[in-house]
């Protein structure tokens, strides 16, 4: 027994050594970690963050446009797989918007994912020893501008429920900020971005969506365009006009001049989620019937809602027109474009009682869409009506109408298609934020 025990102890000790001798830690085999970027990022790594940020702007973009389009009665979204487009979003029957619904949680988290990436980009640029101060400012200016834009989209949905502005520290998130203050903070974030961009050097590549605006002065113009949008949301009409001056507004310029999300079929790239072919069944986006009934004859914007071979019906809703704004799987989606800037210009002018300039700007929109000049009364009220109408058709399915009517307290003018439907004025905060 003794011998046995001895032998066995030696063996056991020896084998334990074998077992412990090979210390292992495989690390992450599949992707880089956050820490790698924060340590001392190279220019290439910072550029990866920029591209990742730009790319992620597109996550759940289709759903964001669906949210605003459906709630704002621009369109119907039928889905064989998810009934909530025709129940929750339209308030069908007894259903309401849920704080766990994908229509808010998915959009909210996608937008904040971009915000997180922007914060990471700022911190990584701050820690990097491979770039000079001007280059650093370029990264920071870009990050702040994009961050402000993403917070604005989120706030557009949650409205008076507010948003969280300070999210730098995931362990200690800042408070939920109410609507007016949030808008003010978004505006000042844009201002900071503008300051960074002046005198900055942009050394990072951007996609073709930024075409003419991919250098520091270009990004500053983009930044001011967004600032003008925020200013009209805040009813700061003079500020809006100042911002427009510094933006890429060209009153007689091409409507589609602007900054876009672009799509591609490359590896790791995305296709336009807001595109469906015409005459589809099952998964469809249809123009609300009122789009065709309310549009003036000869308005070429009717082409954004093309007639279907056969009407589509679901849950008591019918339409015979497809939404046809994004006409291919790689069609670009505007972040902001000149046609909106012209309309912001018109709005600010009308609101500051420069009615003729306001009307002229609206006429630019009208005539270039095949309509005659505005013939209505030259009063502020009538022009606001006209401005909202032009915004409705010019910015169809670009995420505006619901917000515009809310700004002017006119959500009650939206059509109700089924007796129990509701018009919502805001989305709830996701349950994880409460």
């Amino acid at each position, binding site marked *: 027994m003794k011998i046995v025990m001895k032998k066995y102890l030696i063996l056991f000790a020896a084998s334990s050594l074998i077992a412990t001798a*090979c210390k292992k830690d495989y690390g992450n085999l599949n992707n880089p970690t956050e820490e790698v*970027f924060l340590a001392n990022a190279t220019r290439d790594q910072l550029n*990866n963050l920029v591209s990742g940020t730009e790319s992620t702007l597109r996550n759940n973009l289709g759903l964001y446009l669906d949210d605003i389009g459906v709630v704002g009665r621009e369109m119907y979204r039928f889905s064989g797989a998810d*009934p909530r487009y025709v129940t929750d979003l339209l308030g069908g029957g007894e*259903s309401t918007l*849920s704080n766990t619904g994908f229509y808010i949680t998915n959009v909210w988290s996608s937008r904040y994912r971009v915000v997180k990436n922007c914060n990471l980009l700022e911190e990584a640029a701050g820690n990097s020893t491979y770039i000079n101060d001007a280059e650093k400012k370029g990264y920071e200016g870009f990050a702040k501008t994009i961050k402000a834009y993403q917070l604005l989209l989120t706030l557009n949905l949650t409205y008076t429920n507010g948003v969280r502005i300070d*999210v730098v520290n995931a362990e200690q998130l800042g408070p939920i900020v109410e609507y007016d203050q949030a808008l003010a903070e978004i505006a000042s974030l844009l201002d900071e971005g503008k300051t960074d961009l002046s005198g900055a050097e942009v050394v990072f590549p951007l*996609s073709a969506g930024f075409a003419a605006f991919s250098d520091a002065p270009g990004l500053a113009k983009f930044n001011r365009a967004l600032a003008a949008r925020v200013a009209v949301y805040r009813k700061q009409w003079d500020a809006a006009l100042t911002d427009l001056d510094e933006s890429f507004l060209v009153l007689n310029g091409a409507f589609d001049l602007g900054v876009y999300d672009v799509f591609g079929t490359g590896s790791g*790239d995305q296709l336009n989620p807001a595109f469906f072919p015409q005459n589809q069944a099952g998964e469809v986006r249809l123009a609300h019937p009122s789009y065709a009934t309310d549009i003036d004859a000869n308005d070429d914007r009717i082409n954004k809602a093309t007639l279907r071979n056969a009407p589509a019906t679901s849950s008591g809703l019918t339409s015979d027109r497809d939404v046809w704004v994004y006409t291919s799987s790689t069609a670009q989606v505007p972040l902001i474009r000149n046609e909106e800037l012209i309309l912001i210009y018109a709005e600010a002018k009308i609101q500051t009682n420069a009615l003729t300039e306001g009307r002229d700007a609206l006429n630019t929109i009208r005539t270039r869409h095949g309509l005659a000049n505005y013939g209505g009364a030259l009063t502020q009220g009538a022009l606001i009506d006209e401005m909202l109408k032009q915004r409705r058709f010019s910015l169809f399915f670009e995420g505006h109408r619901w917000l515009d009517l809310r700004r002017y307290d006119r959500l009650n003018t939206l059509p109700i298609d089924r007796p129990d439907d509701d018009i919502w004025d805001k989305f709830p905060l996701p349950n994880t934020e409460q």
Partner: protein
Amino acid sequence: MRKLLTTIAGCMILFLLPCSLLAQDRAVTGRITDAKGAPIQGVSVVVRQTNTGTSTDADGKFRLNVPANGILVISSTGYKSQSLKPDAGAADIQIKMEDDIARLDEVVVTGLTTNVKRRNLANSVATISSKQLDGVAPAQTFDQALNGKIPGAYINSNTGAPGGGLSVKLRGVTSIYGNTQPLYVVDGVFMDNTATSAGLNAVTSAAAGGNASTQDNPSSRIADLRAEDIENIEILKGASAAAIYGSKAAAGVIIITTKRGRQGKTKVSFSQDLGVTTVRRLLGTRPLNEENVQAQGWDVNEYKAAVAAGKVYDYEKEMYGEQGFATNSILRITGGSDKTSFYFSAGHKDEQGIIKRTGYKNNSLRLNLDHRISDNVKIGFSTNFINSSADRGLTGNDNAGVTYGIALSSTPGFTELHPDAAGDYPRNKYAASNPIETRDKMKNNESVNRFIVGLNLDAILFKGSKSTTRFIGRGGIDFYNLYTDAQFPSSLQFQTVNKGTTIQGSTRNLNTNYILSLVNNFNVSEKLTFTTSAGITQETVDYNNLLNVATQVISGQSNVDQAGALTAQQFRQKVQDNGIFIQEEATLSDALTLTAGVRFDRSTNNGDPDKYYTYPKAGVSWNLTRAGILGNNIFENFKVRAAYGQAGNFPAYGSKFTSMAVSNITGLPGSVVNTQKGEPDIKPETQTEFETGFDFTVFKGRLSMEFTYYNKNIFDFLLQNTLPSSSGYTTQWVNAGDLRNQGIEIGLTAQPIVTRNIKWTTSVGFWLNRSKVTKLTIPPVVLGSFGVALGTFQIEQGKSATQIIGLTDEAGYPTHIRIWGDQEPRFQMNSFNEITFKNNLSLRFLIHWKNGGENVNLTNLLNDLGGTSADFDEDKNGNKVPDGVDRIQKIGSTAVEFVQNSSYLRFREIGLYYSFNRLPVNFVKGLRLGVSLHNYITITPYQGYDPEVSNFGTGFSTGIDVDPFPASKQAAFHLNVDF
């Protein structure tokens, strides 16, 4: 691997060291029969404390060289063991074996390399014999064959798709986001059971909606195993029995022993099964008339024209109503000499599904070889090559309207989906896809080539009069290549954007493991013995999955390079776990058995890969009849037992990192923060289980009962905490709380009738489990379904871990949320019966009753929304509103319609077999004919296709029903010939 080889080589040298034992051997022959005098084949005859042994041939005869003082131990499953010392003079020994209905003499593996007789076992260990597994109505895959056979388990079939996919939960849910599935060990080799997704999400967008997990429902890789090759399965249901497997054992361990060769004449046998598979149940379609077609907003003119032309179809039946032909052939050869024996099998299985162009194929080769190098050293090899292929169709949840079920849910029968004379399929106006076209053109195939090699070395290093020390080395590799191939040609209705999609996935997985141990048996006296074992283990996993999704595919092509766009994904996983264990077992008077052991484990998956976690265990069993406390008058055997153990569950790979995902834009490479935040301090879940019970046998062994109570606590369970997504992250792995499972298991085995002509053996099992989240350090987490409106799981302190909550419009619920059900059944029962007439005709059947438990049925909801449910226009509540509309109206206010009772009583297997003993030709030794029914009769209140369903595959969340591949049933004919 090289380390493994050197270690083994090092140990091999040790075999040369032990003193060879010189003894005067003599040949002993004998014949072994049952109580009625019929010879028993395959009885093991071993000289105690040695590796010398043989087994009986078809006439029950054996021959063995026995040392002078050698004691023979004679054992065979189902019979009581005997040991005897052959008299010096006796040349031919006659031995009669007694039936062992309670299986008290069955040897059960309790350590990594040690075992004990059931009569001394401190745990309730379930075993499944070859006959129960495969001898009634064979299932398509190995995992399906387990269903309904394990007391204490909740086994659920995820899908009816060929190739299976099952979820096995032993004694309740043991983890929420961690691994819930048991470890499978086949002849000492740790089998990989990963379910690898085929990337169908690229087409279905299933993850884009309410639940971000992929819903491809892939098959579990354990399905590859052939049930026919299996001799015996032991199920260690919790930590108290499985602690010695340490950090892999939290969800239990299923130990599979395959068939091995026996000394004697070479035996060739051939089996052929022929079967027909049909759908278990169809839901039916809505009777249509002009009025409801109009109300539904469908094209009335199209309807009228279809009626006039007599072209109204039942697409559900057309889709799911195929009769699948099934064939299964297996050739087995076994034999051996006194030194070497072998088992060889070659099998071919080809089963068609109930949907056209679906099916399952499996080709398997197995060679198990045993060789005795010397009296003291024996070595065993197990090799298995498997080639399997499953065509699984396109079913389940999606957000693009492309799966068969989702497309059918909104497609009325009067629209034409069949191809015209030119072979062109019409576009389906009522859904995003034409399901008939999809079925006829798409492909979703999983194919596997798998090679499993196991090695088992048993060497007696030292043998004294009282003490024997053995080295036991076990190990092996499990290697497979899994190829997933999904093709969606550009002509499909839903491919107008992508213009053809081909998804090719390639997975390579290598698992290795070894156990090196020393076992010492020390017989202090006849009455007191000690068994000491100690050793080291290592397990490694190396998994590499490459998935290519190509779109804009050139017409008629399937290769991913023949495409305009290509997206690639890769996922790699490497894990190394190391363990050290030591275990001591003491038996006093064959009545009191004490066991204690401890295992130390570390893993590269832990936050700290160098830290060893400790998993102790202890058990005691006291056989009151053997100890002489209870007289032998009533109880033939009475045992009380208790056991305690700890086990762990390592965190998921990568949970300690905050990684950056790739997100590119027009050729610019981009990095974006992952939505999952890393937890650098992540640690394994730990489980402690206490189990106690008693077993007794009465009526001279004809009735035996087993009663077990267990209490299982899981500490620091892993949860994917939902973070406020404004942080940029949506989830984070955390050790979030504690969970408890309590339950009882009662087993009864009896032989109610034993006459000259009829023998009826029955076993009945009853089991139930209750879980409770005893601690939760984060707010309640909703998971596993599609939110409260439709019914979902919620992990909440003080509540059952598997509760299903949902919206309610009843008064008294201020949050409008209540508990609607629970996935956990109230109880389950099973009964396995075998009735034999005149030794020739055998009727066997297995009944399985699951009482209680709820599913979330969204299949019927989708049919309501699409206006196609069979009962849409009924008005059961008499409110003059069609029930379909009533149910739709309830969405968003109550989940009462969706959470449904999924109880069932199922005749899982019924088989009738006839064996011919006397045959006209000499070369045929035996012939057996049989017919069987698999899953043929089911009684259930559940309104979906089948109460067994799981949209999310294997894991925590079972019972979510979203247009699954409908369940099927099979009738088969069996032929078995022995040569």
